[in-house]
């Protein structure tokens, strides 16, 4: 075996480059000059040119056997499936503690107070969900949520995806609850009545307990028929109270926390659509739900109610 002359070894990378279309002009010239006087490298050059030509035929090959079109159809089907399962999420800080926001292609699917870490999120316990931490788009929602919690925004008009609700009944409960306006209060009994199922009070409470999108669907505005705050996010009555406080709904703290009805305007449905002071007749004794409560007069008037001609809440507003 002979060793190559040093200049042949040195030119070899340029030679390969020149033979396979990879060389800059200067290298090509160096190679041309060298092979002009070196038979062995001229042969090498020709060999590499030939190899390059063979590789060129491989490059030009039609796709090797295997049906790319069928593969593409299968891919589209899988992508369509992934798209329906994909839920992107991110955990954000908030004055109420870490909150997970999750959205699918259809809308916001989860607003979750995170306790005990991300792994316990409903996101990871429900079948048919492909969670993905992402959430560039969720940042805007987080911003709106913070504004809401600071009292600078009264509505979260987000498209919702209620796939985490467990039944159509639960979805109906959520729907009815979302109709309770900002600063107003109703009861589980009231919602059951709205749904035409007055005896389904416990089922309504269960559905709201599982509300996948609290705050957005304002289950905090739903209280016991006597004004008790009852449950929220498990046992976090404090959160419910804070959310109500943001909306200006007064609460009392005794053995239990309850709505301070005396600080709210009352509406007992009547043909004249008049709302009252809590001191109007015996209205204070009527169950919440049958009467709706409003923290401020403007809130009642915003839904088209008029001040009562007897108690005149317009002349004697609650302080």
């Amino acid at each position, binding site marked *: 075996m002979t060793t190559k002359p040093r200049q042949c070894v040195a030119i070899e990378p340029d030679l390969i480059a020149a033979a396979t279309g990879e060389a800059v002009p200067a290298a090509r010239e160096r190679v041309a000059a060298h092979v002009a006087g070196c038979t062995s490298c001229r042969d090498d050059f020709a060999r590499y040119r030939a190899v390059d030509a063979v590789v060129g035929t491989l*490059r030009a090959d039609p796709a090797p056997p295997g049906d*790319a079109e069928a593969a593409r159809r299968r891919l589209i089907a899988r992508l369509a499936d992934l798209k329906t399962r994909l839920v992107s999420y991110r955990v954000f800080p908030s004055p109420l503690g870490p909150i997970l926001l999750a959205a699918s292609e259809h809308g916001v699917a989860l607003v979750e107070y995170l306790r005990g870490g991300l792994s316990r999120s409903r996101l990871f316990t429900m079948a048919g969900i492909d969670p993905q931490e992402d959430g560039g788009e969720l940042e805007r929602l987080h911003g709106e949520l913070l504004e809401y919690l600071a009292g600078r925004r009264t509505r979260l008009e987000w498209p919702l995806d209620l796939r985490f609700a467990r039944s159509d009944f639960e979805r109906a409960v959520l729907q009815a609850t979302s109709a309770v306006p900002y600063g107003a209060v109703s009861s589980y009994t009231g919602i059951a009545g709205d749904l035409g199922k007055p005896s389904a009070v416990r089922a309504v409470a269960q559905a709201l307990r599982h509300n996948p999108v609290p705050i957005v669907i304002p289950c905090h505005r739903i209280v016991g028929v006597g004004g008790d705050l009852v449950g929220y996010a498990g046992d976090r009555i404090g959160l419910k109270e804070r959310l109500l406080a943001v909306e200006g709904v007064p609460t009392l703290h005794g053995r239990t926390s309850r709505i301070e009805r005396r600080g709210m305007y009352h509406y007992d449905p009547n043909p004249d659509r008049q709302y009252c002071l809590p001191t109007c007749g015996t209205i204070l004794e009527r169950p919440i739900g049958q009467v709706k409560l409003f923290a401020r007069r403007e809130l009642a008037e915003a839904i088209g109610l008029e001040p009562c001609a007897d108690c005149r809440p317009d002349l004697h507003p609650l302080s």
Partner: protein
Amino acid sequence: MGEAVQLDDPAFEAVVATHHGEIYRYLRRLAYRGAEADDLSQETFLRAYRARHRLTPDANVRAWLFTIATNVFRNHVRSERRRRVAHASLQVTRRELDLDGPEAAVLAGEVRTLTEAAIRRLPLKQRLAFTLRKLHELDYELIGQSLDCSAESARAHVFQALRKIRTTLNGHVLPPTESTR
């Protein structure tokens, strides 16, 4: 699986329409079986779909997909290797794939087949660099990104691959070319 399945995401459908053929072909060249290429290209596009929001409007989508496909293939090779070791079936698998034996060479007889076989026998990085450069004509900068190495190392891999292919073809008559460019 009907024709009717639609993704209903025009932007990503356009990505699939434009690039699926080439990515599939790339993976078909790398994989040993068609079904494998099918799975791997699906995996590539599923990953791409998940990450599509991270793609800036001026991004080089083709290069991005090649990078994903290359990673998918490398992971696949890694897990295949683990699986094979676990099942101690390495020997069998190797024999099945062995195009190097004298009979195979005689049977195939053809320079192209030999070249393809030589490409398959290259160490993984050389093979990927070579395939990306010579069969799909990506530039070295992008190949380096796909392989987590510099553009220079990517180039070195390709050159090393060319040397090996050339060695494999020693003694075979190659199709004539004009002698200079």
